[in-house]
């Protein structure tokens, strides 16, 4: 049974929560997480700006959810796998994929801009919950080969309603696949609040119906996330089978820039979450413990700014994707039909070229 209250190690005030029995991550881990948090926030803000500047078509921001993003990446080993959604750009970047490559999707140059095998990060998934099954397959294949791989698979609260969520958890449980299902419950699926998505005591309770251990964690508390996700990864690695973690967080911005959140929620609701900001919280804690000072903050800021500068550079670089690619990557060997069809485009282009 998941606990009635989500695990919290650092309160919104930045103080250690006295009542929690769970271990605090190491200082080094917390400092590392903080640097990543600052970068993730900067990434979100920079991407938002790039949308306004017309360099990104759309951006689903994880602003406010950065602790989840950062922790998801940090608890994994290099050989582990991460399965992110469209909203998890910051987690993918935290895992080491260059931001410019990640944003290829939202820039519109191609569907996915990075090689998933370089960092063991699946392409960002849009069809909701479908990726959870792929995660189970990756984990099961590794298990058959007796590799120590753990797969961390992310989805939102809304995605838990899809049939594929159910099938993924059940398959993972039956096959004891080492998957950590990580639900970022940000209380909204576009405009639909959690209460219209589920009337279960919590989303973590969904684990029970599969024989999967479920846990709830404060999604704005990086320390709690590192511990809870880290323990889940360890359990999965040790053969305990899949784990389900629900992080309670909040989508601070609209679903994407194209969305108008005022149609369905009051600004005051959002404001209520301001003081639970994951960055401020960890910063206060670290400063209180002497693990962060102005100099440290400057270093983190500088790194974040470098990331943002790189993003700007990448996104202001105009790429002209080659239409031939459309036909090259359908099959290993293009069919006669695709060869004919790509010739149509090539011909059109050469005629256009001739016109110029």
């Amino acid at each position, binding site marked *: 049974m998941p606990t009635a209250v989500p695990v919290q190690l650092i309160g919104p005030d930045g103080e250690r929560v006295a009542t929690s029995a769970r271990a605090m991550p190491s200082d080094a881990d917390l400092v590392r997480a903080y640097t990543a948090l600052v970068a993730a926030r900067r990434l979100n803000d920079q991407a938002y700006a790039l949308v306004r500047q017309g360099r990104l078509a759309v951006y689903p921001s994880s602003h406010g959810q950065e602790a989840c993003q950062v922790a998801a990446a940090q608890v994994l080993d290099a050989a582990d796998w991460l399965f992110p959604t469209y909203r998890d750009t910051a987690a993918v970047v935290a895992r080491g994929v260059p931001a410019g490559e990640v944003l290829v999707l939202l820039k519109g140059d191609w569907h996915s801009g990075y090689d998933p095998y370089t960092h063991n990060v699946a392409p960002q998934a849009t069809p909701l919950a479908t990726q959870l099954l792929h995660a189970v397959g990756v984990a099961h294949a590794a298990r058959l080969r007796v590799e120590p791989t753990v797969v961390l698979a992310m989805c939102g609260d809304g995605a838990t309603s899809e049939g594929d969520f159910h099938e993924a958890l059940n398959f993972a449980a039956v096959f004891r696949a080492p998957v950590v299902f990580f639900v970022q419950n940000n209380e909204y699926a576009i405009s639909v609040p959690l209460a219209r998505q589920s009337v279960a005591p919590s989303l973590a309770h969904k684990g029970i119906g599969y024989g999967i251990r479920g846990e709830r964690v404060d999604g704005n508390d990086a320390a709690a996330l590192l511990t809870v996700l880290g323990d889940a990864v360890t359990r999965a690695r040790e053969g305990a089978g899949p784990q389900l973690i629900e992080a309670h967080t909040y989508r601070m911005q609209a679903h994407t820039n194209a969305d*108008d959140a005022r149609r369905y929620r009051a600004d005051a609701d959002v404001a209520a979450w301001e003081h639970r900001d994951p960055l401020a919280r960890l910063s206060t804690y670290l400063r209180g413990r002497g693990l962060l000072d102005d100099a440290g903050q400057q270093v983190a800021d500088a790194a974040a700014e470098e990331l943002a500068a790189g993003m700007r550079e990448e996104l202001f670089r105009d790429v002209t*994707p080659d239409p031939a690619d459309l036909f090259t990557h*359908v099959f290993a060997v293009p069919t006669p039909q695709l060869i004919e069809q790509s010739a149509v485009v090539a011909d059109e282009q050469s005629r256009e070229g001739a016109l110029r």
Partner: protein
Amino acid sequence: MSTTTTQPAPTGHQKLTMAQALNHALRDEMSADPSVVVFGEDVGALGGVFRITDGLTAEFGDTRCFDTPLAESGIVGMAIGMAMNGMRPVVEMQFDAFGYPAFEQVVSHVAKMRNRTRGAVTLPMVIRVPYAGGIGGVEHHCDSSEAYYAHTPGLQVLTPADAADAYGLLRAAIASPDPVVFLEPKKLYWAKEEVDLSAEVPGIGRAVVRRAGTDATLIAYGPSVPVALEAAAIAAQEGRSLQVVDVRSIVPFDDETVAAAVRSTGRAVVIAEAPGFASVASEIAARVTERCFHSLAAPIARVTGFDIPFPPPKLEHFQLPGVDRVLDAVDALQWETS
């Protein structure tokens, strides 16, 4: 009735976008028939990601227009049950590719219920699907999925190409005793036109000649109709007279109108965004050829999407049948042989 709704009252002629016309159609049917209910993802407070259901919850209450949990098979499956029990559900699949999770419900139940019960149970329901490309959407947001539905016996498949048809056809779809997959060309949502909201609800199954012409016939539907019309306009300047037929109703198909049009010109090009292989365009080419073979001076040409996954935004214009490609196909209709 709430006063928060922003649309003008539905009377007589108005200039409306297709999105507004669809909204009017929903409102008018909901007003006329209390058994009409609208549900899906984000159709309530938000009014749908394309605002097609804007204001419906405010006007009719949240038992008439409501959000569901995020699960398309659930949405269609629940609609089946509601239709079995006296309602006329109109559900929205948020985007074309997000209708796929509901595929089993659509193919194995929606399409078959009347048949398996020999008419005892009928499903007066509409599945609205914003579809096709042209809006720079990322992957899974631009599929032209009409062939999947059109190939499935028991489904009516409609797609409007302008605001007036959007209004009339959606009303006809909701009024139909049988299920309709209603495909809304996303890229035309914001095109404004004159709509007569007091016109009679049209019959389903009628194609329409949108432009007269004598040299060749362009056969198109949904998002490709404006392309065909533009191509015909350009061809006219070049001295070639192209007729344009808007199919509107893919199932049932209006063989009479389409075949007569092709017979009158002896040449034809079918235009559609979907990949061409085993598509609605294939069907149109095949069936028109069957009917008009000896009137044809050249084989019917198809200008369709290529047989590739829908491209990323920056490349989508290569996939969409454009005016140039249509005119190229017209040029290739073996004019020397006539």
